């Protein structure tokens, strides 16, 4: 890679590079990116090893106060459920039981909310 300086001079003069010169120029460029981001990956891994143990989840304060029911992303509010139940009762008349209420949208489009819900569930462990 000692040819980089004359190569840079050639490119700065807007001269047309030969294929091999060009290939070498691109190889150096990719190496610069891989070195930069690879180096960062190593630094980040070291940082994580040093700094992650310092993280203490703040749970004492929140555990003491009972939390109000909070709707999860994508969850149907109780008043909407009541309206749906009333509508079903009005239309069906005959004896029935509502087992579940689901949004009609394509589940593939709800990826963000499903991912959020999954993360919330995973952040709590069951008491045995």
């Amino acid at each position, binding site marked *: 890679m000692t040819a980089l300086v004359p190569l840079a001079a050639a490119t700065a003069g807007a001269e047309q590079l030969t*294929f091999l010169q060009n290939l070498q120029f691109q190889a150096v460029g990719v190496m610069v990116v891989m070195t930069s981001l690879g180096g960062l990956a190593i630094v980040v891994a070291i940082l994580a090893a040093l700094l992650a143990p310092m993280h203490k989840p703040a749970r004492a304060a929140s555990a003491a106060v009972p939390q109000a029911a909070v709707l999860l992303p994508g969850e149907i509010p109780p008043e909407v459920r009541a309206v749906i139940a009333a509508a079903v009762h009005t239309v069906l008349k005959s004896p029935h039981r509502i087992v579940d209420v689901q949004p009609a949208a394509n589940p*593939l489009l709800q990826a963000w909310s499903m991912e959020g819900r999954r993360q919330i569930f995973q*952040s709590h462990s069951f008491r045995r």
Partner: protein
Amino acid sequence: MLQDFLDFFKLTGFPDVTWQMPVMWSVCLVLFYLAVYKGFEPLLLVPIAFGALLANLPAPALVSEPPGIVLSPLAGELVEWTITPGTHVKEGDLLGRVKDPDGQIHELKAHSHGQVTELKTSPGEPVHEGEELLNVFSREPGGLYYYISKGIEWEIFPPLIFLGVGALTDFGPLLARPITLLLGAAAQVGVAATFLIASLIGFSPGEAASIGIIGGADGPTAIFLSAKLAPHLLPAIAVAAYSYMALVPLIQPPIMRALTTKKERLIRMKSLRQVNKLEKLVFALVVTVVCILLVPAAASLIGMLMLGNFLRECGVTDRLVKASQNEIINIITIFLGTSVGITMTGERFLKPETLMIIGLGVVAFGVATAGGVLMAKLLNLVLPEKINPLIGSAGVSAVPMAARVSQVEGQREDPQNFLLMHAMGPNVAGVIGTAVIAGYYIATLK
């Protein structure tokens, strides 16, 4: 009365309409259609298309330069003046001729309207590049977009957009799995490969770098680089970059499916660990220092990206974060888009090179996608904990569309597989990678 009406007609813009203008109006209509009805990056394409419409109307006052001192564009010898002090000139008028050291004659043309007040050099005298040659006076201050476009010429707008991007980006997924930085790096192979192909076709190194950077799928970086290395290609590159970013969901899936097996696409990745605030803050500072030390030419992009991110993560600058995420990025987006559009005159845009650039843009995106996917497969050979190669394609920046494509493709095989957050790691790594390779090209080619 009829004569008065005809005289007035000569003062309107109609006589100045050229054949390229109606053609460009139809190009603008296509861009408006894609943005408004197809949702292709409307935040950028609408201002670009509107700027292009303004550029292709006979309104030179919109972009005219202010009068003042005319500098020599090159070193050589002044051959002759075609004007004298007191002559009234308008934009494009011939002022004189300069001979370069090779004996080639170059015409010196007026950049603005006004009256010549002083000639500072006589014919036969040597001139240096940038030397003052004559003075043109007028009370007209120059057009609106002469000033706004300085934001691109002086490299102000792209870094300010990066400030907003940094304030909007969560580097948590990247910090939770740092190996994904390599996926963002591998996607830059698309930039390098397209540079190589563009060079073979006959583009100069600066032009080839500007075309290649389309593969980084990062609009502000593409504009930043081409404004420095190939400003004459800026409109075509900006349009290609933003159009293809919107086409990520169409371009990437076939390549992703072709390069992976069903078994690989079914890989479920372990949930990401929680990343604390201190890690995020230190990361912003480390990236700033490391990347700027390695590639000083990318300092304004990386510096502003990480400033925005530090503001976001430090938690004590709420007002600044909101300004960066909303007002600043929105205002700059309007100015950036219209300034790019205003360069899309028919004479500059209606060329065979534009079609070549648009064609090479697809190649850049395709190779970048393949680079990320193949790097993920390569890492799987050595890593104990396997990576789903579908997240490799997110190494092209295009945040967050490329990550969303990984998620959708993963769920096609397994509806219970959630790759979105895993794909955000390479996705934001791609932003850093594109800025680094842009810095490399600027450092070596400028």
